[in-house]
């Protein structure tokens, strides 16, 4: 299913929540990233039809989610905050929302039981929610959102409060759902989690869309030199390597880090470097341990875009 945001602005009184956001999301996992108060939750709520844009258009499969009742059959929502009927058991809670999908009691209970068991709550599902730990609550929210196999899954900070086992379990599930053709939007503060889930990201800061798309492609579009580090096997080759690199036309700057035994070059033409470097190393007979770029990580991209934007 396709989610489209066109020139979307949302104001809260005089305060602007998000401004002129464009987004086009298809199947697979898309990570929505941004600092606190960036507008991630507002964006998600507008996609879910919980809120309406002040200007612009939000559509899901061409329909307005705020008014279309049919669309809501396909929405699975994991909110960031706690919102439970605390007096219900986990099983009752999940089954209750299944009944809202016009599913019979027996079937709803069976589906809820299966979903909660898959997420490791088989022993706790008959206990009242007010006795649950944070991780259990998180799993219950995910079970509620996914039990009816929705086409669109919107997960606001799904990993918060989850222990490492739960986190890995959730990630595996999300990858599987994405492979089955679901559209998953996930927001998280833990960039590493998003990085291991997807390369597709939307970066929001101060209510504005800073970047959207494949993170490698985004990096290539940014005109900031990319650092590439080369670690030679012999420490004596450090200066030789630095000298060779500084003479090349693609190199903007070179730095030697004796302590870590590496030469870092900054360049705007990283692809050319990756093609040429093996030839150069072969010619100069320099054996290297590894070539890597910290810049490939989502952390680096995030800090460049978000922190850079904040500095401006």
């Amino acid at each position: 299913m396709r989610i489209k945001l066109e020139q979307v602005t949302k104001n809260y009184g005089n305060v602007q929540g998000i401004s002129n956001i464009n987004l086009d999301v298809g199947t697979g996992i898309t990570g929505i990233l941004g600092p606190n108060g960036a507008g991630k939750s507002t964006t998600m709520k507008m996609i879910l039809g919980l809120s309406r844009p002040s200007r612009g258009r939000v559509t899901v499969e061409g329909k307005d989610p705020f008014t279309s009742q049919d669309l809501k059959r396909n929405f699975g929502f994991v909110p960031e905050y706690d919102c439970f009927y605390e007096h219900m058991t986990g099983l009752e809670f999940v089954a209750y929302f299944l009944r809202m999908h016009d599913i019979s009691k027996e079937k709803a209970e069976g589906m809820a039981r299966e979903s909660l068991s898959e997420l490791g709550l088989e022993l706790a599902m008959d206990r009242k929610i007010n006795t649950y730990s944070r991780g259990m609550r998180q799993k219950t929210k995910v079970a509620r959102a996914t039990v009816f196999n929705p086409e669109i899954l919107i997960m606001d900070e799904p990993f918060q409060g989850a222990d490492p086992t739960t986190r890995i379990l959730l990630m595996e599930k999300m990858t599987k759902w994405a492979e089955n053709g679901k559209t998953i939007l996930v927001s998280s503060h833990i960039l590493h989690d998003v990085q291991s889930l997807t390369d597709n990201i939307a970066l929001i800061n101060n209510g504005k869309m800073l970047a959207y798309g494949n993170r490698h492609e985004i990096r290539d579009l940014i005109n900031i030199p990319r650092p590439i580090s080369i670690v030679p096997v012999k420490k004596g080759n450090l200066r030789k390597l630095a000298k060779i690199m500084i003479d090349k036309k693609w190199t903007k700057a070179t730095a030697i880090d004796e302590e870590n035994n590496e030469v870092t070059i900054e360049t705007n033409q990283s692809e050319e470097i990756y093609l040429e470097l093996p030839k150069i190393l072969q010619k100069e007979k320099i054996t290297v341990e590894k070539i890597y770029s910290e810049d490939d990580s989502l952390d680096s991209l995030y800090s460049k875009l978000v922190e850079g934007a904040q500095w401006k």
Partner: protein
Amino acid sequence: MEMIKRTLEDVSQIPVMLQTFAKRSKNVFPPIAKDSMYRLLINKVTWVIIAILLLPCLLGVIIYYQTDEDRQIQNIDGDKVYYNSEGDLIHEEKIEAFAGQNYMIIIIIVAVIVAIVFSSELINEEYEKKTMQLLKTTPIHSFEILLYRYITGVICMFGILGLGSILLYYTTMMSSGLHGILENLDVLSLMLKVLLFESIAFMAVFCIFTVYFEKPFLVGIIYWAVWERIVSTQNYQKLTVTHYLDSIMFDSAKDMNLGVDAEFFNLVNSSGDIIATEPLNAMLTIIIFAIFALWFGARGIANKQF
């Protein structure tokens, strides 16, 4: 303009919507009703209300034991008929007391508070706990969200107040024996009828308040004190729920020898003319008002942004 257009669209979709709601109701209504009833029953305020309802019953029992010795019995066709020390029929005296107490305590004061508390628990709590956001991401229509909670609220409100009335009737009338209790069941059924329509009307009013206002208790009390207690006694009383409830009661009460007149119910205008509404019209007005209120409340839920 857009509002009118949307309203017309809504109206044209009503038959299809009703058909869908009817089909879905067997799966959607029971869980909502069960959860709502449970929430209302575990609510501490419900128990404060029950305690307040038991107070007049307890006082009724005290009066019974205080006056028990003065009673005189006469056997008429196998029935034990009780008279007081002055030779008057006890049940005729007691039924007036019951009608007065039931009207003053349950119909005027307790019912309004019950409606405010129940509507607040069923609707406002969903906003406070943010479960309304989850409900709005499910295919359930905002009218269904409100309607099923409303129906459960009406059932619980009528149930608790009705039982309170029955208990009050029994404790007030027990000094007149079984004969007196059976003789005046029509008054009890009138009170229950008024309570049912009061539940229908006030739950609808306060459902609107809980949807549109953050502090429904405050708005509810001001509405009750100003609109239902003051305006309902004036010339424009036909705009109040109290007028229609009083009209239902007045029509039957005047035939029941309860010693009440139109002025007792304030069903007169400034020129002294009786302006009571026909009971059937009054009932229909209340039902139509409740349907309109539900539609208006559902619009509020549908348009609410989070």
